[in-house]
């Protein structure tokens, strides 16, 4: 629907092609160095890349979901979450309802995955689910749905595959060089043409060191841009940027790091899952600084792309983040709405925590026993007995 998908994707795709070229140049020179054959190097690079791409394309979402121990839920499991996802699906005009997953993790984060809009999933940690009120949850889900709608998921997973291939190739090449020597020197044929050999070797070494760094920088640049765009779309879908802003605030103030996150899966999360801080944070981060994202969202005077772009420009004093075509196509005032959720203080965190853990215990097949004294017992599926003594009042409860 929205123009920015096309024109912004074009820029991103150019960067991806840049990464692809980098991979081929790397393969070319490594081939020359080790196999005495540039085509051989290209073919090896290509094979690794194709295998990884196919795996990422067909299995990427299930791998990601299974390493993060995500549990798929239905409407009955968590009606509030389901309804919010459905609302955002409608607001974004997504054709198919994405699958919804809950990750049993106290860290605060969420991500979207799936190769295209028909095979998409959103996942949220149980920690985040219990900390957010309805408006904030809606903001987070809107951001994730935007990633699906803007087709960021496929783009970013293809990017991380390219990055992964480059990193793997350079890593193995440098190990072989350090410990095994090059193919040529082993065969001791380098008596002639030593100069050319030396140049190739130098280029290969430079590539081994810098290709992964460049690839990472490109990757991070693409990722950050997609984050801004997902924020903008999220604000448009909810008409309430404050929801996402306040959710991001909660997320960034948490000190718990996502357990199952790694470098490759980082851009899938709503906020950088790693909490380390450093000078190079701006260049080498998959996400823009959260404080800045919050500031942009809070200074929006309307819910349209034009408003987001204006807010972005006010803070950066530079170029637009959203392409001109998208801005003209969506020109027209879109007002913000007011808060729907109850006042912040009334958010019953305990109740939300129990609501969420209730789902998780059920999905993990724990049996529930309510004792007369007010204690609720959750019995692990491995328990073989037929009755259980209540640790509070000492009475014997039958297991059903």
């Amino acid at each position, binding site marked *: 629907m*929205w123009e920015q998908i096309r024109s912004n994707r074009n820029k991103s795709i150019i960067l991806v092609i840049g990464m692809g070229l980098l991979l081929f140049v790397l393969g070319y020179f490594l081939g020359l160095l080790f196999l005495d054959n540039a085509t051989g190097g290209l073919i090896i690079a290509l094979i690794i890349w194709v295998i990884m791409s196919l795996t990422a394309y067909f299995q990427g979402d299930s791998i990601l979901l299974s390493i993060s121990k995500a549990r798929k839920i239905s409407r009955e499991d968590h009606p509030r979450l389901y309804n919010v996802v459905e*609302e955002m699906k409608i*607001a974004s*005009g997504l054709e198919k309802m994405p699958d919804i997953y809950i990750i049993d993790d106290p860290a605060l984060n969420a991500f979207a995955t799936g190769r295209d809009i028909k095979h998409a999933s959103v996942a949220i940690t149980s920690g985040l689910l219990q900390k957010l009120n309805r408006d904030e949850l809606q903001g987070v889900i809107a951001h994730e749905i935007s990633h699906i709608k803007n087709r960021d998921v496929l783009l970013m997973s293809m990017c991380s595959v390219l990055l992964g291939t480059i990193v793997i190739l350079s890593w193995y090449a440098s190990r072989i060089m350090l410990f095994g020597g090059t193919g040529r020197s082993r065969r001791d044929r380098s008596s002639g043409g030593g100069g050319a050999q030396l140049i190739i070797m130098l280029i290969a070494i430079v590539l081994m060191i810098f290709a992964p760094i460049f690839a990472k920088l490109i990757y991070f640049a693409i990722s950050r841009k997609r984050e801004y765009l997902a924020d903008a779309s999220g604000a448009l*879908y909810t*008409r309430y940027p404050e929801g996402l802003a306040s959710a991001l605030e909660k997320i960034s103030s948490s000190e718990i790091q996502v357990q199952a996150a790694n470098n490759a899966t980082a851009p899938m999360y709503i906020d950088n899952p790693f909490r380390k801080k450093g000078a190079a944070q701006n260049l080498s981060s998959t996400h823009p600084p959260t404080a800045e994202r919050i500031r942009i969202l809070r200074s929006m005077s309307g819910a349209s792309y034009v408003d987001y772009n204006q807010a972005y420009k006010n803070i950066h004093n530079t170029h637009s983040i959203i392409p001109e075509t998208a801005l003209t*196509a*969506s020109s*027209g005032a879109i007002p913000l709405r007011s808060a729907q959720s109850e006042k912040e203080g009334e958010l019953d965190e305990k109740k939300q925590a129990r609501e969420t853990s209730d789902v998780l215990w059920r999905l993990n097949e724990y049996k529930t026993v309510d004792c007369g004294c007010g204690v609720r017992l959750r019995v692990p599926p491995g328990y073989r007995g037929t009755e259980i003594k209540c640790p509070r009042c000492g009475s014997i409860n039958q297991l059903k």
Partner: protein
Amino acid sequence: MLAVWIIIGIVVILAIVFVSTYNGLVGKRNQVKNAWSQIDVQLKRRHDLIPNLVETAKGYMHHERETLEAVTKARNIAQAASSGGVGARAQAESELTSALSRLLVVVERYPDLKANQNFLSLQEELTATENRISFSRQFYNDSVLHYNNKIQMFPSNVVANMTGFKTSEFFEVTAPAEREAPKVSFQ
């Protein structure tokens, strides 16, 4: 000879621009149609829910005949307007929404009814549907905005005028009560 080739080149480029603009317009128009059918689905769902809701409420609310009848009447009018244009339909649906919100205010006076499991689940379903209606309306209006912009802005307006594309109508909410309605959020 060169001049001929240049002219042919220009014509070909123009033709490509024309066709792609035209296709873009058709895509936008389909999107509006699709968004409209989304609203339709949600509104129908609401129409189907109301008779059950009224029936359940009747058993408890003995002094609110008028309010209940107003809801039923508004629902029937809205259903009849389903085949009409966007404007007429938006009007009828706003009336229905305000009739419903009046009913939900009155319900507060009947604790027995509020305790009724069947009514509770109907009310929850209704609230969820109201939310979905407002978001599908939002998506429809966003789509119309894009479509209309495309029709009115240069250069696509040239193609639109030549091939007879017409701007679509927004689904406007008229009754002030409507804006209040989808606020309930116990889900």
